[in-house]
């Protein structure tokens, strides 16, 4: 049996060639015997350089592999939220920048995401309570099937706020979203105030919103 080429989250040892394998090379001519004395040091130096480069690459990989932490994350905070234009579930065009001047909860979710389902009633309630003070809630549904599956879900859970159909272009604009829910809170100037990755408490979200209203 063989697996696909994807990386398994817990990194497995032994995927890199051993030093013995790496330094095992073709046989050298007999004439090269004398200079060979200096080679162990040179080889060691080369391996050290390669190791440093690889550790750097691995570190970069690891930080991308696990980009997720719970709670507000720092990257992009205080920066203007990337603008995007998509269709909502009724086929109307939606542009994020149109909401400038209002506080926005931008929630990336999907119908198959059970933790997202916990947050939805909170957003419904918060929208009812703070709409008059300038709150907007936008749900970005990441279902591959689009409005066909999202629309019945929206009706079933009485989602009273705008729901649009997302895609990878949008998630890329926001620095990549690897798991759901991921929620951005955007201030009245259109800047990202906080990012909440994974399920967080209602209190955390509500406090972040109230601070901006």
């Amino acid at each position: 049996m063989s697996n696909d080429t994807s990386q398994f989250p817990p990194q497995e040892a032994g995927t890199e060639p051993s030093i013995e394998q790496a330094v095992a090379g073709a046989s050298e001519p007999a004439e090269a015997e004398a200079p060979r004395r200096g080679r162990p040091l040179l080889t060691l130096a080369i391996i050290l350089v390669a190791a440093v480069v690889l550790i750097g690459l691995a570190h970069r990989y690891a930080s991308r592999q696990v980009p997720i932490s719970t709670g507000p994350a720092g990257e992009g905070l205080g920066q203007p939220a990337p603008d995007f234009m998509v269709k909502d579930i009724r086929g109307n065009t939606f542009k994020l920048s149109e909401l400038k001047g209002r506080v926005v909860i931008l929630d990336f979710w999907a119908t198959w995401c059970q933790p997202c389902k916990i947050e939805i009633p909170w957003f419904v309630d918060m929208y009812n309570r703070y709409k008059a003070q300038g709150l907007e809630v936008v749900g970005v549904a990441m279902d591959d099937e689009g409005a066909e599956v999202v629309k019945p879900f929206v009706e079933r859970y009485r989602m009273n706020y705008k729901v649009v159909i997302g895609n990878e272009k949008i998630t890329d604009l926001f620095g990549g979203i690897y798991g759901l829910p991921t929620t951005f809170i955007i201030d009245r100037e259109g800047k990202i105030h906080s990012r909440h990755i994974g399920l967080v408490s209602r209190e955390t979200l509500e406090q972040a919103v109230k601070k901006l209203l």
Partner: protein
Amino acid sequence: MTGYRLQAAGCGPLRRFCAFFLACAVVVTGAWAQGARPSYVKVAPGATPVKAAPGQAFEVPAKFQIASGYHINAEKPTFDYLIPTRLEWTTKDFKLIGIEYPKPEQATFSFSPDTKLAVYQGTITIRSRFQAPRALPGGKAALGGKLHYQACDDKMCYPPASAAVEVPVELGKKARE
């Protein structure tokens, strides 16, 4: 000759460096490039070829490891909107009789403290039954398939994904007679 010696002395380590660096770079950057969509399920190692008698039914156990701290939905999830785990065989040489999924665990999570969800965690074995053909060119074949799943941890869920599985099958001698 001296020039040759010097060239040989410098070329060996350089070649080794290049080979070592390239090999490692392929491993690291390949994994890095796929970091955007990590796999939470992989085929468990140590599987041996399955032996089948010609024309007879035989069982194929496919073992999968779910990464620690993650779970995937059962074949029949608790809610209809959850994405079920499904093993799909793509092979044409063998007739699929049926697939038996393991009994799911009933577990609670921080996002579902009151409702138990039917999930798979740890290592699972999915047993499939096939009907072997009466003859097979060379007597060998491979059953190819994909496990479709959608993983979550205690706080979030990840996009639907799949893990490829391939099981070598050896057909008994009688098959070629």
